[in-house]
């Protein structure tokens, strides 16, 4: 049976190779063997470079009819209060030029405070919380800002190897102004002791790049007698559609 020590050794070897390479990788690797499920699920050929055209230079539009104002509060979706640490998570969605991504959809999903997902295939013997579903949506505002109220998720075990545990995280799904900016990622919490052990987090081999997935505790977001606050800004790749936007301006 593969142990954490085996996985940690693989992670360390890849990390050393990367450090010695002298290159900088800003993204995540698709081929990252310590994450066993990626072995048969990563392409082996390089992607074909294309110029985005037509439809790819636009994104679908979401509006008030898609997302209700209460859907950003994951603590009020049932009749009672969910258990756990109430938190607020907020930040801005921008493109790589710093332009806010306005009025665009943000979707999140997560485990409950005990590390259990509302999913029939989640077999972790931690309790479900009848007052917590763990999914939310919102639209960014004109400044590109989003805000969710939720419960801090717990870490949870998975079966990548023996005694594998994921650091606590919230899944985020984001759209930009172009289809090509689509991003699904995970937000982590500062100081998690599981970071070094987790092959999904470590699949971003550049230390600075993976730190961009870690939220910051922000006392200005924390609300007295109510909840603690975290800030996490998201930068989507550059919008290829700029020339087209100018044509239509």
């Amino acid at each position, binding site marked *: 049976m593969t142990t954490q020590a085996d996985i940690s050794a693989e992670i360390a070897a890849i990390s050393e190779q990367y450090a010695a390479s002298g290159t900088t990788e*800003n*993204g995540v*690797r*698709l081929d*990252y063997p310590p*994450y066993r*499920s*990626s072995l*048969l*699920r990563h*392409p*082996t*050929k390089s*992607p*074909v*470079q294309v*110029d*985005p*055209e*037509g*439809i*790819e230079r636009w994104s*679908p*539009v*979401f509006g*008030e*009819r*898609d997302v209700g104002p209460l859907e950003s509060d994951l603590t009020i979706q049932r009749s009672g209060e969910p258990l756990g640490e109430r938190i607020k998570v907020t930040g801005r969605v921008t493109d*790589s*030029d710093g332009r806010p991504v306005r009025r665009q*959809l943000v*979707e999140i*999903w997560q485990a409950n405070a005990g590390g259990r997902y*509302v*999913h029939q*295939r989640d077999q972790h013997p931690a309790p479900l919380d009848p007052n917590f579903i763990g*999914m939310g949506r919102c639209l960014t505002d004109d400044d590109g800002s989003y805000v969710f109220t939720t419960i801090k998720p717990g870490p949870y075990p998975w079966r990548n190897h023996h005694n594998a545990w994921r650091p606590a995280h919230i*899944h985020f*799904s984001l759209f930009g102004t172009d*289809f*090509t900016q*689509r*991003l*699904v*990622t*995970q937000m982590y919490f500062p100081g998690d002791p599981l970071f070094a052990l987790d092959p*999904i*987090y470590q*699949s*971003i081999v550049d230390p600075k*790049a993976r730190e*961009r*997935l870690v939220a910051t505790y922000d006392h200005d977001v924390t609300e007295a007698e109510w909840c603690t606050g975290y800030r996490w800004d998201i*930068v*989507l*790749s*550059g919008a*290829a559609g*700029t*020339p087209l936007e100018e044509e239509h301006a």
Partner: protein
Amino acid sequence: MTTPGQTVGPFFAFGLEYDGDSALVPPGTPGAVRLFGRVLDGDGDPVPDALVELWQADAEGRVVQEPGSLRRDGHTFTGWGRAATDRTGTYSFTTLAPADPPYFALCLFARGLLDRLFTRAYLPGHQPEGPLSSLVATEDPHGYRFDIVLQGDGETVFLDHRRTQD
């Protein structure tokens, strides 16, 4: 610096799926077509925990900029949808054939896939030349079929869009 991606994981269903997600038009709509296919891994086995997103022009070739994809009203065509694969690795959309460009832009997510992948499914009869020539859906009694092979024999051509700014 851009924010890196991470896998959608195994438990996205309750977060991302919703009623009507894969039905861009109601069944029985005049001109409705089905775009479907299987998502397969490097052993040729189905991927039952993948999510395919579709974005397309409408039947007149317009880029639709209308809200309502998450709560469809039954008559506004929004051009966007998502379909999770079932236990046979099959995804399926009910939609309209786009006029121009003559392809469905697709974005793929899955457990085990650390970042999203982009590709295009061209309509039968609109095969592109060059490196994208394999990206054509086939006409099938059940609709337009477009399988997505993540790895190995018949690996799907995935796209890296050049950026004017990054």
